[in-house]
């Protein structure tokens, strides 16, 4: 998909790049992508360290009228750079975020305490990790130890819940399971690992591929047994659907992409097929719906917005021009803190202008950033749907 020769230098991608807007050290997608690509030689060591400043939000891809996909050119340059240069501690840590979080969850009460103390913060800083918003709280009870209910439902879902839900907000994960069960869908939790995106974003193709292969093998078994894969985090989704067949070259990718759905896309499908007729009840909230960059990039429209439109009483306004700035682990790195804070503050100030009471976003990291910076409640769309249908975490 490397079409750098198609670039007509119109600069539309540059206007859309959130990082370029606030960080003068980053030359923007046009220069970092198609322009620099002409000078990247197979045999020469890469020197363009600034490619690491790209957050992989993919906004440039979506804006380019000529099908250049600058973000993909940059992603490859990031992997090359990562391979040829010693990695910083923060890059290594976040590439392996999955193991770290697993450890954090096992030791949740202690880990959370440490993370919130002064010393804990100092340790984070020394590792190149920021603390401008609180590091998410680990949850002791992850999704992995969720018990499976017996079911004879026709529709079967293998739920790819992702790291955020698993380690930090399993309560949302459990609500999603209850929600799908209330739609007469059989839900299983397949064995799963980090989708691989954090490793990719930290220039570590090998680790990303390792996770991806394990996930693909596990999910593939369920697909063979008649399950659809449903994800809730839009960044996991983009990685499964876009990077598995793309840069990660996973052999089972085709099967995965053919059978994987966004949660809300899946629910709309159930409604569309007449499989369910949910009776939404009134939800009195005024919501700013922050569209995660990666949801936009998925090219499936905004399915959660379609469901929100069916909920009586709910007022919502869509924001899809602002990047929250956190981009998963990107904003937690000290080097990107200023960029992340500036972008997040901008997004929050636009949200506050509307008088919204809550923020809603499909992606946990967007919620963490916007909730943290605004002090407002940041909700998952599934939480609103559950509220409207009277579904709780328990039963």
């Amino acid at each position: 998909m490397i079409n750098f020769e198609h670039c007509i230098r119109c600069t539309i991608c540059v206007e859309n790049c959130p990082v370029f807007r606030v960080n003068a050290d980053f030359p923007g997608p046009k220069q970092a992508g198609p322009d620099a690509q002409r000078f990247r030689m197979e045999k020469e060591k890469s020197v363009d360290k600034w490619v690491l400043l790209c957050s992989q939000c993919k906004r440039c891809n979506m804006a380019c009228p000529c099908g250049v996909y600058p973000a993909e050119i940059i992603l490859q340059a990031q992997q090359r750079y990562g391979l040829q240069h010693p990695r910083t501690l923060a890059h290594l840590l976040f590439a392996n975020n999955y193991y770290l979080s697993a450890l954090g969850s096992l030791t949740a009460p202690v880990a959370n305490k440490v993370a919130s103390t002064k010393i804990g913060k100092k340790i984070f800083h020394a590792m190149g990790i920021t603390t401008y918003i609180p590091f998410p709280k680990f949850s002791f009870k992850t999704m992995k130890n969720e018990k499976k209910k017996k079911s004879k439902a026709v529709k079967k879902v293998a739920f790819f819940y992702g790291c955020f839900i698993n380690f930090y907000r399993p309560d949302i994960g459990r609500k999603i399971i209850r929600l799908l069960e209330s739609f007469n869908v059989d839900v299983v939790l397949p064995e799963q690992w980090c989708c691989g995106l954090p490793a990719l974003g930290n220039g570590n193709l090998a680790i990303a591929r390792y996770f991806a292969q394990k996930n693909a093998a596990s999910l593939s078994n369920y697909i063979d047994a008649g399950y659809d894969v449903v994800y809730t985090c839009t960044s996991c989704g983009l990685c499964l659907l876009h990077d598995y067949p793309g840069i990660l070259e996973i052999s089972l990718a085709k099967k995965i992409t053919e059978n994987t759905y966004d949660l809300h896309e899946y629910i709309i499908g159930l409604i569309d097929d007449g499989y369910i007729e949910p009776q939404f009840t009134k939800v009195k909230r005024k919501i700013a719906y922050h569209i995660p960059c990666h949801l936009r990039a998925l090219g499936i429209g905004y399915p959660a917005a379609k469901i929100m439109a069916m909920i009586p009483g709910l007022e919502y306004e869509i924001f899809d021009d602002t990047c929250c700035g956190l981009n998963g682990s990107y904003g937690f790195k000290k080097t990107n803190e200023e960029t992340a804070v500036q972008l997040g503050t901008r997004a929050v100030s636009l949200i506050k202008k509307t008088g919204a009471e809550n923020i809603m976003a499909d992606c946990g990291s967007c919620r963490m950033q916007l909730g943290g910076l605004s002090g407002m409640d940041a909700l998952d769309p599934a939480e609103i749907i559950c509220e409207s249908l009277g579904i709780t975490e328990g039963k």
Partner: protein
Amino acid sequence: MGLIQHDVIIIGAGVAGLTAGSILVEKGYNVALIAKGEPTACLSTGCIDICSLDHDPLHGVSHLPDEHPYHLVSRAVIRESIEKFKESMVQMGFPYTGSPESNRYVLSALGTFKTTCLVPSTMAAAPQDEKDDLHIITFSGLKDFYPSYITARRKNASFSTYDASASTTMGLATNFEREDFLEKFLSWLEKLNIQEGKIAFPAVLGLESAATITQKIEERLRCKVFEIPTIPPSMPGRRLFNALKDYFRKKGGMIYWSWPVSGVEKTKKIIEAVTTPSEGRPKSLNAKVFILASGSFVGGGLTARRDTIVENIFNLPVFVPGQRDNWFDSDYFSLNHGIGKAGIIVDSSFRPKEADWENVFVCGGILAHTDVLKNGCGHGMALATGYAVAASCMGYIK
């Protein structure tokens, strides 16, 4: 799985597609707009050219060659489309000045006058002759704007430079949206003690709140302020696009980004669905009607091959202005490149001629014989034909 049936699918997020879309959503239709990228509006000055051939644009329109698509819409429709556009821009906080009865000028970054018709309120005070005294403010490091081009042409113009610690139009516009920045800037500006004439800026006075920011500066300095459009990245062009897009969505329209249409599903004379490349299960969207608003060459609707020109989605017949020799004038800066006439010929209901489809309508820059550059009719024509196509669609769906 086909996600919920749409009444209308519009291909292209340009001025034409968004105009048609907004009208249809307001009439209660279920509309999805799909786009592979951002439109040419983002590259434009944000000013609406209706027809630059005559001081009275509507008069200019009546002198266009018979085959020009403007003749498919009545003057009343042109007026209505402009009225509708102005109303929606007021709602979006980005009002326009001007009327389709008379053209006006904006000052270009080269110091020349550009003829256009409607201008954003941030350019309303642009000089209409050589008389006004101008004081231009520029920003250190800004590479896309050189005030000396203007001072070389105009005797009564001078300039000052502000250090805003940003050197791109986007970076500057972002800064202007911050109140602390604006305040600091205003106190610097007050110290310049400009007594006479107008203050001119490259078009970087904010993104979402440009109209208010311009007004704020005017009130504080007690003199007229106006923006000068820059080369892309053009902020006024982006503001126009954002306002049209947000209006469409506010009214209930849905936009699918990352959706380059690459194929169609059809039965007999009906297009059932459009499809986009997918790594997984086929991605398609179905509707009763399809509006093709994919623009000309830059927008991505047309592609020129060695000896022919193709329409990229429905493979509609394209009017090609003769052999390749006729496509380009020998003078690069000429307004008479034959290729400006290339595009889709439509009938009076905006259906493509000599094509098999009943439920496809075409509008905007992809139409044949527009000659946008020569006739100075870019956004105006997109507005008028977008408006007219919406009416044709409603007639068809009924």
